[in-house]
């Protein structure tokens, strides 16, 4: 039982790091994703081509590879190890890779949400003499949100599990914490069950998110677009 408590505490610490990466990614990727979606819809061709190419590269390559490049490129290629060797450097590198990656996925969802609102909605607002900002905030915004909630909830639940990829640069998240008891940590070694046990954390957390998103979808189901 004592062993169990030791493991549990270590996993809690690891999961806190998982949650931190999750939260930082959302906080960074949602606004950046909006900016990217506007860039990709820009009427200024060079900008939209540039942004779409960037999105294509990010979405067309594995997140794990992006993590490795962000983490190792400055040190090994530029001889300028800006991340240092500590946990905080790994966290910053992981956050950058995750934010960039998720911003690109979010941007496509936002673009679909924005373009999915029929032009007739905007035009109806225009002929009623409303201003651009009144049309956006009072008419189109909620319709956009309704459209993006289902795909966003999918992405966000995928993000919960994707955070485990940061194990590849040795970020001390929950998988790393579970694995440490195989090699040996705090007098416990050769144990595989703590690693398997981390699954419970993911299950609980994604379960909670699923409930929240279902509630939100239900709240928005009073109207149809």
């Amino acid at each position, binding site marked *: 039982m004592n062993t169990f408590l030791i493991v549990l505490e270590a996993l809690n610490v690891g999961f806190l790091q998982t949650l931190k990466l999750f939260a930082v990614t959302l906080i960074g990727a949602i606004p950046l994703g909006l900016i990217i979606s506007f860039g990709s819809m820009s009427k200024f061709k060079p900008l939209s081509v540039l942004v779409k190419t960037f999105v294509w590269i990010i979405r067309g390559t594995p997140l794990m590879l992006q993590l490795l490049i962000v983490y190792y490129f400055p040190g090994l290629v530029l001889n300028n190890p800006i991340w240092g060797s500590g946990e905080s450097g790994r966290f910053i590198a992981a956050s950058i890779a995750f934010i960039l990656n998720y911003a690109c996925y979010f941007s496509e969802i936002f673009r679909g949400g924005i373009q999915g609102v029929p032009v007739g*909605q905007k*035009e109806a607002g*225009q*002929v*009623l003499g*409303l201003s651009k900002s009144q049309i956006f905030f*009072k008419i189109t915004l909620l319709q956009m949100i309704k459209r993006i909630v289902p795909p966003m909830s999918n992405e966000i639940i995928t993000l919960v599990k994707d955070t485990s990829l940061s194990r590849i640069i040795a970020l001390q998240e929950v998988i790393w914490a579970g694995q440490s008891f195989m090699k040996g940590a705090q007098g416990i070694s050769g144990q595989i069950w703590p690693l398997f046990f981390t699954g419970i954390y993911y299950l609980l957390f994604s379960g909670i998110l699923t409930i929240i998103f279902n509630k939100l979808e239900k709240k928005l189901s009073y109207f*149809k677009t």
Partner: protein
Amino acid sequence: MAILEVKNLHKSFGKTEVLKGIDFSLEEGEVLSIIGSSGSGKTTLLRCLNSLEFADRGTITVAGESIFDSSVDLKARSEKTLREKRLYFGLVFQSFNLFPQYSVLENITLAPKLLKKATNEEIEKTALELIDSVGLSEKINNYPCELSGGQQQRVAIARALALKPQILCFDEPTSALDPELTGEVLKVIKSLADKNMTMIVVTHEMSFAHDVSDKVIFMDSGVIAESGSNEILTNPQSQRLKAFLNAFGK
């Protein structure tokens, strides 16, 4: 004096000229029907009147006030004056375009409240009267998705009326409706005509047009091919209008 005067209106999309010099005028309280085959430029004309499109050439004047003048630089006028000029007209769309997240009452009060046209109580009182006049008093708290097409279009008419436009435009208001629902919408338009509302109605409902119109314009590939009183529907002069009406089995 005519309430609406349209002079020499031209509009092109890229290389295709859609309006090739449109001239007409309308007196206060008159109903004008615009008929014509698909692609003849009817919607484009209504959209120019409502400043959803801007003509390349020509002028639009309402009650002596210039709504559009191609000799004045478009960029010189502010967003605010544009919005004010839009309010001379109302537009009822073929596809209703109600705001789905708002109830019937909210759809009608949204714009007057945002534009601070009156106090909120007055706006709601007017809205309830309008809803009553289109026969939807039982539906004030329903959402658009809970209404039939005909009911939605009647809400859209009330929504446009709430801003008291000088001229109300309809773009094929019954084309998206099942045949059994067109009657209730046409009845509302007819009742507005009886109250001397100035209206422009693009329609394919020939007997309705004949019944309600003071003037009729027949458009054909961007020009007014024939115009006159509703008599032209029963007694067309031009070959093109004859052919068009024949195609309608008239």
